[in-house]
């Protein structure tokens, strides 16, 4: 590795076999140490969880079409919204981007063969599966109606299947921690020659910041859930006031994890948007270093603001003041990102392919989600809005409008590289319209519901809220329909999609330099990075060529001209 070798675009693997086909059979998947295959297995699992959580969401919205008991009784409703929250948070959003897409692309974008600890990586996946199974056992055999937050003393006294559910979340936490450990070590130690920190793709920066939170915050959730289990079995009396415990302490513990967890969810979404915006504008992200550092500072500030979930819970005025002040700091790095994304569009060459549509959607929705966060940071206003639909709408704008749009954007963006197949751009755009419109109808109406005073987690409500609830439910079904179109489009692509060229989007990103299908070792020859991942002005025409290498004969073209 002495001479500076330029990356070899579109080189074929020596055997010609991609990672999907070079080994066959169930065993080659179940025992694989290949981060790409593990990433795909994660992808399948999280999509399944998304489907399950989505069905729960539609059940919730169906019940809320009309006031009074329509579809299910209060008790059933409570279980359904608990499962919606728990499944979406623990089984879908947290692992969605890091564990599935991150696993797949992090090593490729670092120009290395695999993550630092491939065996640990497979272990994380099986820990995830175990956690998911335990959680599903809790759903099937039990009666989990605590809300995904497991607030004490309700959870301490609720059905014993809550122990199963918390065990599930506890186990899933370790899957997340180990993935984080793996990624940090990989980023530090496995970068290809020439890939110094200032050239690191912003997706990697985002994954890195996410991993730091996963390693430092998740253990606190683990111990909190562990203590809750001890509360229910040994009655240790830390959280249950009947035994001298303090329920507010549980909230402190819980949010010390779960607020940073919000950044575990959103940072990867932002990370993908960086890649997509750069590719489809053919430009380096404006203010690269500021964007990278804003991820890191979000990760760090995220640790200091957990108290803003508890402004009405009975903290001292002093603590309330400090948490409110710190909370506003979060707005700054978030704002920096949005401003830089918009500035990137300036003087670019913007192509509106479906991944770009979702990323632009992300910027719009995240802007709304972020600004409504300011309402909740202002103490006097938060008192009115806390625990109402305003909060529900706010975090759905950030989590769905942010993370899910980012995830879907990444899925569209990398789909050709992962599967080797193209999809129908037309169907993808139709799905986007449904998803975007449906999402806004669903959740914008909830902002108004919340500021009017509609509390969360109600299966029944006053008549005056009915029109808005109905609008919201209608939007939810449009949203669900959009996702169905998307599902159909991806399945169709797998079955009968055209063969994907190595670089369909003319991207300068490192992951597009390898062949499609991807070589089992990611690159046929270990690459040396001679330019940054967004240096479009340094790319040769050949590197940015969107078609198949065999169709491309630069010399002939030159001769013709």
């Amino acid at each position, binding site marked *: 590795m002495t001479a500076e070798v330029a990356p070899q675009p579109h080189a074929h693997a020596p055997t010609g076999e991609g990672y999907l086909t070079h080994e066959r059979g169930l065993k080659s998947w179940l025992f694989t140490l290949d981060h790409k295959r593990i990433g795909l297995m994660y992808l399948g699992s999280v999509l399944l969880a998304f489907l399950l959580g989505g069905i729960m969401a539609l059940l919730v919205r169906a019940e809320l079409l009309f006031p009074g008991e329509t579809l299910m*009784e209060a*008790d059933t409703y*409570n279980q359904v919204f608990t499962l919606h929250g728990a499944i979406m948070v623990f089984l879908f959003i947290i692992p969605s981007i890091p564990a599935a897409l991150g696993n797949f692309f992090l090593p490729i974008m670092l120009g290395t063969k695999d993550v630092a600890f491939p065996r640990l990586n497979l272990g994380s996946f099986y820990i995830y599966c175990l956690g998911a199974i335990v959680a599903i056992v809790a759903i099937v055999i039990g009666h989990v109606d605590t809300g995904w937050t497991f607030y004490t003393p309700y959870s301490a006294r609720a059905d014993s299947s809550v122990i199963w559910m918390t065990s599930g979340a506890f186990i899933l936490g370790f899957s997340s921690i180990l993935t984080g450990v793996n990624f940090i070590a990989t980023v530090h130690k496995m970068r290809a020659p020439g890939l110094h920190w200032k050239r690191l793709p912003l997706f990697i920066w985002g994954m890195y910041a996410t991993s730091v939170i996963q390693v430092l915050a998740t253990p606190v959730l683990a111990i909190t859930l562990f203590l809750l289990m001890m509360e229910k079995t040994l009655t240790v009396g830390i959280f249950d006031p009947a035994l001298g415990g303090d329920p507010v302490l549980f909230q402190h513990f819980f949010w010390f994890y779960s607020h940073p967890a919000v950044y575990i969810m959103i940072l990867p979404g932002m990370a993908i948007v960086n890649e997509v915006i750069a590719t489809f504008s053919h430009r380096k992200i404006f203010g690269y270093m500021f964007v990278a550092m804003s991820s890191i500072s979000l990760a760090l500030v995220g640790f200091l603001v957990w108290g803003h979930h508890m402004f009405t819970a009975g903290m001292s005025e002093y603590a309330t003041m400090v948490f409110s002040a710190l909370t506003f700091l979060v707005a700054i790095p978030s704002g920096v990102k949005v401003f830089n994304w918009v500035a990137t569009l300036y003087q*670019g*060459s913007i192509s509106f392919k479906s991944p770009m549509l979702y990323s632009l959607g992300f910027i719009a929705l995240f802007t709304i989600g972020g600004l409504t966060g300011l309402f909740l940071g202002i103490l006097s206003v938060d008192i009115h809005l806390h625990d109402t639909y305003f909060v529900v709408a706010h975090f759905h704008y950030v989590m769905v409008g942010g993370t899910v749009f980012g995830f879907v954007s990444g899925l569209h963006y990398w789909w050709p590289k992962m599967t080797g197949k193209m999809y129908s751009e037309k169907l993808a755009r139709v799905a986007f319209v449904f998803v975007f419109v449906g999402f806004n109808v669903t959740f914008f109406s909830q902002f108004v519901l919340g500021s009017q005073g509609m509390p969360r987690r109600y299966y029944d409500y006053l008549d005056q809220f009915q029109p808005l609830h109905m609008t919201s439910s209608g939007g939810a079904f449009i949203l669900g329909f959009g996702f169905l179109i998307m599902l159909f489009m991806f399945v169709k692509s797998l079955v009968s999609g055209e063969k994907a060229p190595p670089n369909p989007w003319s991207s300068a990103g490192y992951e597009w330099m390898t062949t499609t299908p991807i070589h089992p070792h990611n690159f046929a020859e270990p690459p040396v990075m001679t330019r940054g991942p967004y240096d479009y002005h340094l790319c040769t025409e050949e590197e940015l060529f969107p078609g198949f290498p065999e169709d491309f004969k630069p010399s002939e073209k030159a001769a013709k001209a």
Partner: protein
Amino acid sequence: MDENNLPEGTLQLPPQWSTLAPEVDEMYYFIYWVSVAFTVVIFAAMIYFMWKYRRRPGLKAKPTGHSTALEIGWTFAPLILLVVLFHQGFTGYVRGAVAPEDSIEVRVRGMQWNWEFEHRGGVIDDLNYLRVPVNTPVRLIMSSSDVLHSFFVPAFRVKRDVVPGMYSTLWFEATQETPDIQCESDADCPEGLWCGNTPPGGEARECVLPIFCAEYCGAPRGITASAFDEGGRNTNHSTMMGDLKVITQAEYDEFIELGPPPPASCQGRDDINECWGEQIHQSYCVACHSVDGATQAPAPNWKGLFGNQRQFVDGSSATADENYIRQSILQPQSQIVQGYNNVNMPPFRFSDRQLDAIIAYMRSLNE
């Protein structure tokens, strides 16, 4: 009470009924317009760039430049706005957190899934019914006997969690009386009011301000909880609602002196006390005391109790007369009947009129 002069809400916020509300709303709309401004600027820039720099033949992206000044600018400029927002929000919060010295106090007890209100002098109001005087600061001292609840009155812009094992407080000053309107459904009520809980006697409901429970507190297992339960008791988190009635100072003083008046459905009847007593039993006692002489219940059955000879755990005995009943309600632990030493009945501080009604009801059970 002038029904045509009630406060009105806006598209986003419910009507203002407290002294705190205008300030909160002003802040709300300030940040709302700031957000609208940001959104418009960002979206406009995005859309303009998207159109101007759409990919087309002959257009090549320019390499990204760098502007430290711009980066520093949009990192720190918002900080000024944020400091203003924080300061305004915090001062508003402090005003809402510290009750004026001349506040009257009301004890609030949250329990799955009802609110109980105890006024000065130990006057217990009807379950889920809170009366407060207009133009007087009221401080609520709240506790919970089971799980977390949260006391939320949108019209006052106040909310506070009710936590087992500690007291939490909240204050407000209502600016206007609630009108006296009878109703069948929420649609009959002016904006911001709801058609309150059905009283235990099943009489007509009235328009009142809603009190919500904003912290999730569950539902009973496997029991179908109809929207608003008959008998005046609520049965799950989403129906844990209270009626808030703002009345004049004179009406409040009378209420404190005499306790809650007999329910409308009993008034004018010959057996007004028995009728009222039955309703109090329905609200407060039915969970432990049955009245049919047959049902097994954790505490003594009321049928045939009055006038009966009572054997106590300490060996003594007494006849169940008016004084015995009164003492058993006000100080239940003072004389424990044999066989019930594991029942921990809490003391109930009813007004004299309410006690009379309970006793009359018990006597009527013997007939």
